[in-house]
């Protein structure tokens, strides 16, 4: 309180009203720029990213699906990345397979969402020429189970206001507590190939 009064007094005596207004004006500008730089994160986002998986066994019908309504957000200031997959959006060629996937394996009525949250290691937007390689580490949540993935290879390329991000990794059905019944075990691979492709637009 004392300090406030003293300062006020000092301003009152040393500066006239004009200088005081000027100082205030600069102060407001400064405040504005500080807050603007804090708030404005460069975010890239897509609503129709593609995530696919395949668990096919050679010479049997392909077990493959793709989802092209995936939301993904990349924060280009620090390399933070998040994706949200609506499990019902996975489309199979075979309708019965799609039904079984939703009802028996992914149980999409109980677990409608799959999410990924992670960070691109040593991300630097200025390094994004065509086909830069990065590594991403993060957590994938699917079928109510969370699993951490380390150092998934990701290629990024930037063109104008767009960053394209793609890559693939492997995982096991058992990692996500998905049981494959004995009768179909030889028709569905235990190792699942997952691939993703996001065309992120500057927001």
């Amino acid at each position: 309180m004392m300090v406030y009064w003293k300062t006020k007094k000092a301003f009152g005596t040393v500066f006239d009203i004009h200088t005081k207004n000027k100082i205030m004006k600069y102060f407001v500008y400064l405040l504005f720029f500080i807050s603007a730089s804090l708030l404005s994160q460069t975010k890239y986002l897509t609503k129709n990213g593609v995530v696919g998986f395949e668990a096919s066994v050679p010479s049997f019908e392909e077990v493959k699906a793709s989802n092209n309504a995936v939301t993904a957000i990349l924060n280009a200031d620090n390399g933070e990345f998040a994706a949200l997959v609506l499990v019902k959006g996975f489309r199979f060629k075979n309708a019965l397979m799609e039904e079984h996937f939703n009802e028996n394996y992914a149980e999409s009525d109980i677990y409608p969402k799959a999410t990924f949250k992670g960070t691109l290691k040593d991300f630097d937007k200025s390094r994004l020429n065509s086909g830069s390689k990065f590594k991403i580490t993060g957590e994938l949540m699917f079928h109510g189970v969370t699993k951490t993935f380390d150092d998934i290879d990701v290629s990024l390329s930037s063109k104008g206001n767009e960053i394209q991000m793609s890559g693939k990794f492997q995982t096991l059905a058992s990692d996500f507590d998905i049981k494959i019944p004995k009768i179909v075990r030889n028709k569905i691979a235990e190792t699942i190939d997952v691939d993703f492709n996001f065309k992120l637009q500057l927001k």
Partner: protein
Amino acid sequence: MKKLIVIVVVIIVTIVIGYNYIYQDHRNIEKEQPTYRAEAKLLAEEFSATPAASEKKYLNQTIEVSGIITAISDNTITLDKTVYCQFSMNISGLQEHNRIQVKGRFIGYDDLLEEIKLDQCSISN
């Protein structure tokens, strides 16, 4: 002889039924009657009030939504900034700010962007 014919017919029928079961057609959302009809704005209010319950209620259901187009990209439109509809057909004739009625399958609530997502959409008016 009669017995043989009966057996053959039964086998053929079983094969046909089995084949049709395994290779059945996908749902045709365009031809389905909507289970729910809603205004995009009201639907959005319902979802922001009770996200989990609403998601459960509409999941995998065919809904008919009407609203104003606020964004268009390749094969998707957004109604009233909250309902995201993905089409499988060409939608080049649509324009922003127009009122439209869309039928599609609800696949889930995107809580990152607070959007309601529909796929296999078709224009119903």
